């Protein structure tokens, strides 16, 4: 019995058109366009301060944008309040972890389904599935504030899964993880988009993870797109090599 089946299960692509965002004098995003299909994993990369987090923030309505449009299929979500964008099928995580610290792990995940309109019973069912997917079964009754760091990010991802979004934007899910943990995360994430018909956008500085996980990459530098394509195509683009010069990042 599902009293809150995702109504956006037929949504088309997430389309971002010519997005511009200024902070006072700083142009953080300069006419950035990209498209995210369901079932695909898109890597959004770029040096520190290139505008990756800002892009996620404007797409999800946390920051107002100064130009451009955001659409899911043919539904315009530009400048809608964040909760409406979430209900339109867009989930996200945060670079600086944001959990509900005084709620249990179960409640953290459950509330995402509840806010999509599920009864608590159905929300619990959904939450348990997401919790198992992230391997958090042993922690369900704990407060989020009691979790070790590595698990906090997993709870954030499980919470987003429980929304059953059409598109999910992950902001540095591997930050602070060691190589082993990051490999684990990779194994967990890789099969999910195809299985759920989920469009996944991943921001990360861990190039090993990005190169192995992503079908396509989108590269930002100083708020501008400097390259797009498959991982192999992108690592041959001169501007990308230049932006990452001195880093071992493009090695793959």
């Amino acid at each position, binding site marked *: 019995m599902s009293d809150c089946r995702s109504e956006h299960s037929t949504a088309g692509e997430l389309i971002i058109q010519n997005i511009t965002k200024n902070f006072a004098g700083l142009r953080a995003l300069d006419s950035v366009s990209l498209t995210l299909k369901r079932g695909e994993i898109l890597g959004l990369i770029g040096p520190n301060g290139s505008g990756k987090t800002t892009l996620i923030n404007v797409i999800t309505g946390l920051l107002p944008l100064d130009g451009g449009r955001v659409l899911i299929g043919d539904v315009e979500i530009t400048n809608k309040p964040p909760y409406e964008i979430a209900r339109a099928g867009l989930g996200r995580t945060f670079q600086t972890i944001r959990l509900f610290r005084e709620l249990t792990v179960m409640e953290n995940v459950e509330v995402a389904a509840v*806010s999509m309109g599920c009864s608590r019973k159905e929300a619990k069912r959904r939450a348990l599935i997401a919790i198992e997917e992230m391997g958090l079964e042993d922690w369900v009754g704990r407060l989020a*504030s009691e979790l070790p760091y590595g698990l906090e990010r997993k709870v954030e991802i499980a919470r987003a899964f429980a929304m059953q979004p059409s598109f999910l934007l992950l902001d540095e899910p591997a930050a602070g993880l060691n190589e082993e943990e990051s490999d684990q995360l990779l194994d967990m994430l890789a099969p999910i988009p195809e299985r759920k018909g989920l469009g996944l956008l991943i921001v990360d500085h861990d190039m090993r993870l990005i190169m192995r996980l992503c079908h396509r990459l989108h590269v930002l530098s100083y708020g501008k797109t400097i390259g797009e394509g498959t991982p192999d195509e992108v690592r041959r683009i001169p501007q990308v090599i230049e932006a990452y010069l001195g880093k071992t990042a493009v090695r793959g």
Partner: protein
Amino acid sequence: MKNTNAGILWLKSHTTPFILSIPLLILAVLVQAYGDTLLVRIVTVLFINLVMVLSLQVFMGNSGILNFAHIGFMGIGAYTSVLFSMTPQAKAATLPDLYPFLRPIHLPFLPSLLIGAIAAALVAALVGYALMRLSDAAAVITLFALLVIIHTILVHWSIVTNGPRTLFGVDNYTSLGISTFFGILVIFIAYLFKETPVGLKLRASRDDRYAAASIGVNIVQVRWAGFVLSAFLAGFGGGLWAHFITSFSPYAFYLTETFSVLSMLVIGGTGSVSGAVLGTVVVTLLREGLRAVENSVNIAGVFPNNLVGFTEVVLSLLLILILVFRPSGLLGSQEIRLANTIPLASGKFSASELSRESSPKEGEHV
């Protein structure tokens, strides 16, 4: 059959309101049977305080917004309910200028309480729509302004409140039994509210409003719902108090009472119904004890001058100590429950591992 099992399972994971109510119920029964007039009064007040503190917890505890306006809603409930419950003769004596259409109305006690509660909820619903957009300091200051506004209206709307003067002639309907019944009812309401979808979303928005919005929580809407329920219960508590004390002025619903109710909640722990109950019991009993000490010291003439404000000073000190050493209150945000009944999906770790002692104190995590 299946339903009864589900019901039992549900009860097992929600023991909190029962654990909180049973000792209070026993206390009320014992005092009713053996207590003298003073003790009956103290315990009646205890349960009225419980309604006020728990109703504050419903909004403040779950939304995280410090609500200074709360006692204003108590005032609205008190004045509205007595306008409906007083006899026409009593109204003529204390409110000679009352609007003619209100003069002949004379309703029983409970409908009057309900009307008072609805009036408070309506006011909250109207102002809340704008107020609930604000957060942090802006919200606190605006709610304080709301308290001042409600107070000013009560003081100046002489036709229905007798102005700054005392309104008298209210019937004494709030017995120990009545206040016990509603005090315990509100324990259940406050506990169940936390577990409703709205309550859960409100608690999420308290912990992180950006994360809550990003999973689809309409924060203004859930805050509004909590605010209106909180005001409804406060209005109800105001009615209970009015029909206990039987004569009062608008100054009863101002800073002193605000401080008193806030300190009960903060000392016990804002985040949980258990904390609210414990804080109410501790502070109410402590206050009566201190007052007795203060009186006997004065009667014995230990000091050349009378001891004044001793009770208030000690309670304020207690509040400060709690804020310094246990900022989340005596009980913090975890409910008291039977140790082996925490709702779990897997039993891979022991219940003692989950008990609240193992959780870090507020401010400990970086």
